[in-house]
């Protein structure tokens, strides 16, 4: 590979959408040609990132943050308004077909299978499209079948599959040519716990064994926590966090929750610096403490020396709660966002 270790490189990538009211329909568009009162949404706003080969990156953000739009640009479906991107050293919107041969794509809410054809025939068409040799195809299908349990579905027409079954087939379809880079846009929507689990295991496996670079968009933070070492958080088309998933906690969690259990009720904790009581119930008390200015050891030490305690634990917040916090603070911080985006 001429690009060495870099799988995806994105520089100043932007995409605007024209959402002018008058711009709808044939006559509307014609009218809009004459008086240009336009309303533009910047769905993706000058983002930069680099993803190395073999990385497993979570790409998250609220609804409408611009995740799918980014993926559509990286897969060559959409042409960006400005900026550049390279995937496997190929510019997706210049050489769409060349790029497509080297990537796998799943859009959870759509299918790339043929609605009327049995799954097996869809796979066979993809084999021809991606010029996969018959032996390679057979061994890949065997592998995919083992991981995703495709065998009972193979002879069913796609339109008769349940959502989860279809998703498994779509994931398999995206991997028939064993692409070095895989884009997954919400591949776990609507899946049951077991299906999610098997898909997660499978993704971990191909990332580890084949070194497949995976970019995963999801609203399920368990997916992120279990799969993605690296996290990119998008907010209104801009990247607001790009780093290790673990480090997110350090960066955004300024408070930790301590759960204290006494032998009997009626104990009141007060006067410990940096600590606030949030809830008391029976023998239990929940405290938060200022993580930035006080050490956890000191706080626990002080509590243990002053009170007779039965049990004490520190709750690590989940990625979900952190992200919920990030989204929440955004909502309280600024509401006139719509306006600022309409250039």
């Amino acid at each position, binding site marked *: 590979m001429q690009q060495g270790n870099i799988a995806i490189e994105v520089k100043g990538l932007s995409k605007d*959408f024209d959402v002018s009211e008058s711009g*709808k*329909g*044939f006559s509307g*568009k014609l009218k809009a040609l004459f008086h240009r009162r336009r309303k533009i949404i910047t769905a993706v706003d000058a983002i930069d990132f680099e993803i190395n080969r073999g990385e497993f990156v979570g790409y998250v953000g609220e609804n409408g943050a611009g995740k*799918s739009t980014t993926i*559509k640009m990286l*897969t*060559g*479906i*959409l*042409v960006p308004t400005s900026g550049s991107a390279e995937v496997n050293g190929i510019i997706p*919107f210049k050489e*769409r*077909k*060349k790029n*497509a*041969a080297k*990537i796998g*794509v799943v*859009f959870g*809410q*759509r*299918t*790339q299978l*043929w609605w*009327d*054809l049995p799954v097996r025939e869809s796979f066979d*068409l993809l084999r*021809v*499209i*991606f*010029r996969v040799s018959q032996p390679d195809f057979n061994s890949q299908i065997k592998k995919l079948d083992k991981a995703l349990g495709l065998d009972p579905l193979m002879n069913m027409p796609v339109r008769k599959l349940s959502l989860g079954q279809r998703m498994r087939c779509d994931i398999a379809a995206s991997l028939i040519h064993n692409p070095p880079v895989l884009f997954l846009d919400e591949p776990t929507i609507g899946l049951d716990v077991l299906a999610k689990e098997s898909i997660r295991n499978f993704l971990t496996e191909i990332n580890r064994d084949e070194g497949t670079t995976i970019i995963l968009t999801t609203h399920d933070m368990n997916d992120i926590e279990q799969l993605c070492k690296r996290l990119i958080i998008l907010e209104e088309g801009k990247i607001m966090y790009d780093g290790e998933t673990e480090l997110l906690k350090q960066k955004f969690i300024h408070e930790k929750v301590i759960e204290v259990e006494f032998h009997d009720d009626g104990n009141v904790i007060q006067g410990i610096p940096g600590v606030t009581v949030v809830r008391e119930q029976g023998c239990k008390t929940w405290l938060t403490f200022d993580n930035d200015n006080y050490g956890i050891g000191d706080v626990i030490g002080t509590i243990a020396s002053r009170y007779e305690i039965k049990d004490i634990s520190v709750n690590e917040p989940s990625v979900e709660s952190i992200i919920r916090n990030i989204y929440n603070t955004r909502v309280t911080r600024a509401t006139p966002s719509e306006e600022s985006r309409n250039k």
Partner: protein
Amino acid sequence: MNPKLFLKFVSVSFQKQVTYRFDCFVGIVNGFLYVFIFTSLWKALYSQFDTTMHNGYTLTAIVTYAVLVMAVRISFTMDDSIIYRKVMDGSIAMELIRPTSFFFMNLAENVGHSLFHMMARTVPIVMISVFLFDIYIPFEVQRLLIFIVSCIAGYILVSMMNFIAGLLAFWFIEIFPFLLFKYAFYTFFSGGIVPIDFFPEFLKPLVNLLPFQYMLYYPTTILIGRASLVEAQSIIMAQLIWIVIMGAICCLMWGAGKKKLIIQGG
């Protein structure tokens, strides 16, 4: 584009048509009705005059034209709203993530569609018509071969026309009314209703500037023997030139359109 892949997609599209058998029956009746109406109209018209020849057509010749132009037109049946629908529901995205040419995949889809209509509708309609109407076709192997070549060229032109019309959805999204207009325009200016020879003089310069006459009219005139074999060769040359011109338009529109394309629905 890989010929094997092309044929595979032709067959997928063909099979899809097979599932709509009822449509096909309706299609035969509908097609035959057209043939019946047009031939009856010509007979009625010709009986009004003493002269037996109009614009170079005897009654037999014009009836033959009416039947055969319909046969070609039905064989050229394709779904001109495919691209429009793929843009409307956003499923075009799933096609663009494949390393295949959008134009050729669209052509393959059209060919499968048309082959089905040719087998299921054209063949029975022509067979019935041969029995019912007074038809004369000069049988010469060479003429037949040139006719087939000319039909293929005409078919490519129709497919390109529909591709160009469909691509307008990249700009305007809602183009259905336009497609209806296009269909009417194509049917008339290709000679699908009345041979070009019957067009009023003031329309002829326009007709000669447009590619439509090379879609149905000229291939049909080759088969019915109105064009000599020498003329037929220059017809095919003209068709090839139009394929180059329209191919260039397809390329330019595709290049510009993909920048405009937006995906509906997430």
